[in-house]
């Protein structure tokens, strides 16, 4: 009895292990069977899909090839159209440049010509008004005092020449008187001192008279020249004032 108990006690662990291993193998077998069942189903569906692909994929690929051929053909047409459009654009650009050159240049020339004509006419009219206004102002300033035919400068020159002629005439008269006195002295052979004194006195008087006459003539000439210069300067001043007034009022 004790021996049987001891044998049973010694064989209990191996028995448990045997049962556990059997259970494990059963569980593994069930899992594998489930997995294989699922794999078989999947492979079956995959087989069906591949069969469908074999049945429908090749025609689709043929159609896709045909479509691509058509697309390539259309792209070729689009390329040609693009080239044509580019050529047309170039032609339009050239034509626009030609039209611009043919239109803008004459228009520019015409505008320049009109501006030049306008400027020339305004310049001519402005220069036409200036001397007229100056002439009116000068005539208004001078009144009815008509200028000499040769001008004021010629009148002053004539007055100066007259003064010079008067001076030379007085000098000549004094020289003649002195020469006459010397002749008288020579004729009297130096004897008549009174005659010489009288002759010298008369010569001196003649010289004084001639000098006075020359001075008067020169003074008159200078005075007339001064008056003439004053008149000229007054007339010029009036003319300039009138011109300035006309210019400022005209706004030219």
């Amino acid at each position, binding site marked *: 009895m004790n021996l049987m108990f001891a044998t049973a006690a010694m064989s209990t662990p191996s028995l448990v292990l045997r049962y556990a291993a059997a259970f494990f193998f059963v569980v593994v077998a069930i899992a594998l069977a489930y997995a294989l069942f699922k794999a078989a189903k999947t492979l079956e569906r995959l087989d069906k899909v591949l069969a469908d692909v074999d049945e429908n994929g090749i025609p689709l690929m043929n159609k896709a090839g045909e479509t691509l051929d058509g697309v390539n053909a259309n792209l070729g047409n689009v390329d040609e159209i693009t080239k044509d459009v580019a050529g047309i654009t170039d032609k339009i650009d050239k034509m626009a440049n030609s039209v*611009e050159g043919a239109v*803008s240049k004459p228009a*520019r*020339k015409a*505008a*320049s*010509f009109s*501006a*030049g*004509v*306008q*400027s*020339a*006419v305004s*310049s*001519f009219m402005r*220069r*036409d008004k200036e*001397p007229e206004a100056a002439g*009116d102002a000068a*005539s208004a300033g001078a009144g*009815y005092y008509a200028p000499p035919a040769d001008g004021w400068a010629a009148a002053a020159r004539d007055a100066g020449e007259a003064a010079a002629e008067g001076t030379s005439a007085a000098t000549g008269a004094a020289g003649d008187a002195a020469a006459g006195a010397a002749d008288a002295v020579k004729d009297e052979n130096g004897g008549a001192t009174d005659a010489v004194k009288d002759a010298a006195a008369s010569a001196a008087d003649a010289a004084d008279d001639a000098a006075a006459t020359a001075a008067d003539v020169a003074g008159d000439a200078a005075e007339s020249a001064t008056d003439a210069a004053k008149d000229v300067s007054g007339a010029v001043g009036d003319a300039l004032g009138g011109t300035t007034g006309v210019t400022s009022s005209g706004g030219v």
Partner: protein
Amino acid sequence: MGLSNKLVATGIAAGAALVYYAHRRRARTGESYVSILRQLPSDAQRWVVDAQRKATLALEDGKSAARQREDELTRRLTAGSAPATEG
């Protein structure tokens, strides 16, 4: 219209112009008609010389203005046709 009629018409027009000119000048300067008629050739000659001088100056001014205008238009057209710059 014959030649005589043309001459008569021209003479009438010239006489009217002369009378108008003498009347205006008399009203402006107070000179007599005889003086005005006597000075008419010299006035005409002076007017011709002045007109030539003024025409020469006006022509130069017109040329200058035309060149200036053309340069301005060319500059405007060049600025208008230039491509726009960014920034």
